[in-house]
């Protein structure tokens, strides 16, 4: 299929009509693609008896926020979404801070300095991207237990950060390499230390990549399920995915309202980030994905 960039001479009425038809088909597909998510939102706003009514009603009227109130504030259920929201926020923000700091300080010498062992370090870190997290699940649990970190914030934050670290090094090193070195040379002549150069020149110039990495790290920490499932056994410390999975067990299968309210709440922060920073996310996927 030619994605020929049309030159004016080629733009015929026929190809314009075809493009419109293609757009129409894709828009319908996109709406179909979004419909499961819309259905979750619609369900969360309905009164309980309306939820299971057939044919499916896509406009939640009369609408209610009672399910949101219940999952956020009711303490009678085993999983408390309000508390889980707080836990997820603390864990994700903590992981982002550690990942961005550790990846940047590691990527800087790998991109900008010459020293013995550099290629080995880079090779091992990037090679570790192939290590499936499921493979180190048990030993990581043993380690976390020995540190006394089970069911604590640090027991979630630090392993989550370690999981995203290699990707961050890879991404930032690529980006640092693309920044021309003249500014740094000038600063070095003026007597700036490597730390000054890193903090005053490299980091400010790398804001797009740092932003992309922060979003990526936030997403993986916010959405991770397997590690918190085993590393936390106090309900008060559950992050959202675990709380949601257990919420399902807490309600009978017909009570989709509270479950869908919880699902919607858990999707909100990333939806907002996504709407605000759409370009940056796409750019991050691009940088991290293909530019190997």
């Amino acid at each position, binding site marked *: 299929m030619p994605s020929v960039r049309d030159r004016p001479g080629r733009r015929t009425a026929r190809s314009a009509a075809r493009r419109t038809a293609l757009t129409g088909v894709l828009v319908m597909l996109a709406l179909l693609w979004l419909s499961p998510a819309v259905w*979750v939102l619609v369900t969360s706003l309905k009164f309980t008896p309306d939820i299971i009514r057939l044919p499916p009603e896509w406009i939640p009227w009369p609408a209610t926020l009672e399910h949101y109130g219940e999952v956020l504030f009711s303490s009678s259920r085993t999983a408390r979404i309000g508390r889980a929201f707080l836990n997820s926020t603390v864990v994700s923000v903590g992981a982002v801070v550690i990942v961005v700091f550790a990846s940047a300080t590691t990527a800087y010498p790998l991109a900008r300095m010459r020293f013995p062992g550099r290629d080995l370090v880079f090779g091992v870190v990037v090679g570790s991207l192939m290590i499936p997290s499921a493979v*180190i699940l048990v030993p990581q649990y043993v380690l976390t237990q020995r540190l006394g970190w089970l069911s604590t914030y640090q027991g979630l934050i630090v392993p989550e950060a370690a999981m995203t670290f290699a990707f961050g090094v890879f991404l930032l090193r690529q980006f640092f390499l693309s920044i021309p070195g003249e500014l740094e040379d000038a600063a070095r002549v003026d007597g700036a230390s490597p730390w000054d150069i890193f903090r005053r020149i490299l980091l400010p110039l790398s804001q797009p990549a740092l932003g992309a990495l922060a979003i990526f790290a936030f997403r993986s920490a916010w959405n991770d399920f397997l590690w918190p499932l085993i590393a936390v056994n106090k309900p008060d410390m559950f992050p959202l995915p675990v709380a949601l999975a257990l919420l*399902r067990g807490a309600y009978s299968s017909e009570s989709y309202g509270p479950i869908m309210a919880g699902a919607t709440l858990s999707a909100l922060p990333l939806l907002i980030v996504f709407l605000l920073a759409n370009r940056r996310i796409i750019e991050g996927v691009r940088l991290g994905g293909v530019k190997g």
Partner: protein
Amino acid sequence: MSTHTPRRPRRGALTPYLFLAPGLLLFSVFRLYPLLDGLRLSFTNARLGRAEYGWVGLANYERLLEDTRFHTSLWNTAFYTAASTLPILAIPLVLAVALNRGVVLRTFLRSAFFFPFTLSVVTVGLTWLWLLDPIVGPFNYYLRGLGLPVRSWLADPYTAMWAIILTTVWWVAGYYLVIYLAGLQDIPPELYEAAALDGASGWRSFWSITLPLLRPVLLFVFVTHIIGSFQIFGQVFVLTQGGPGDATRTVVQHLYETAFQNFFHFGSASAMAWVLFGLIVMFSLIQFRLLRGHTEY
């Protein structure tokens, strides 16, 4: 740090390592060490809560040879991987090629397909659990409306894994779409123009230009997908919990239950992890071999 000894050059030589220190500490303690410790554990009879444990040689691996539920879970994981690969490679590719043809609303369309990828696997699982509800779910309602057969997709051993695949495609297709789009943009448009001048059809230039030049991207998507599929867990945990029977039990789920739910047998679970790791490494190497080749242009 002493200042009066002639240390200056050596301090400069230390600088890169000082920068590396925090990152490598994190990395070594929480990635490298657990990886190797897992290998060690796989040769022991370690259990949750057991303070002292001994070396058992290859016993854990030998037991896996007889563990029929492990075999089932390996088979299911292989089936899931094989069956999901084509849709996950092809659907985003078709969408990307279509989006790359100068349609309007490109950003909206790309975002719509990408959106599910921002959700957690649990949210995605709960979404499809509700959609696929056999009695009151909209999926079956609309199928019935179209005159198509309906069933309890998740409770039927013949369809449960396909429902999990459908869920996964919905979840990750947008991510691969964005990667394909980036790859497509790197193909010089002149190539298509030259092909069009030579009278090549749309299909012809797709097969002879787009696909060969997307090869590194396809390889990346392929390897990423295979590594991910071998570890599938969350979808299964939420949608079927391995059922009906053991029809959707996967390796990581079996590992999870062995270590943390039923037997608390860390040694045996670590052996499973290393078998899984070995398979992943093997498949990745085969893929690199098969799909490498000239990608320069």
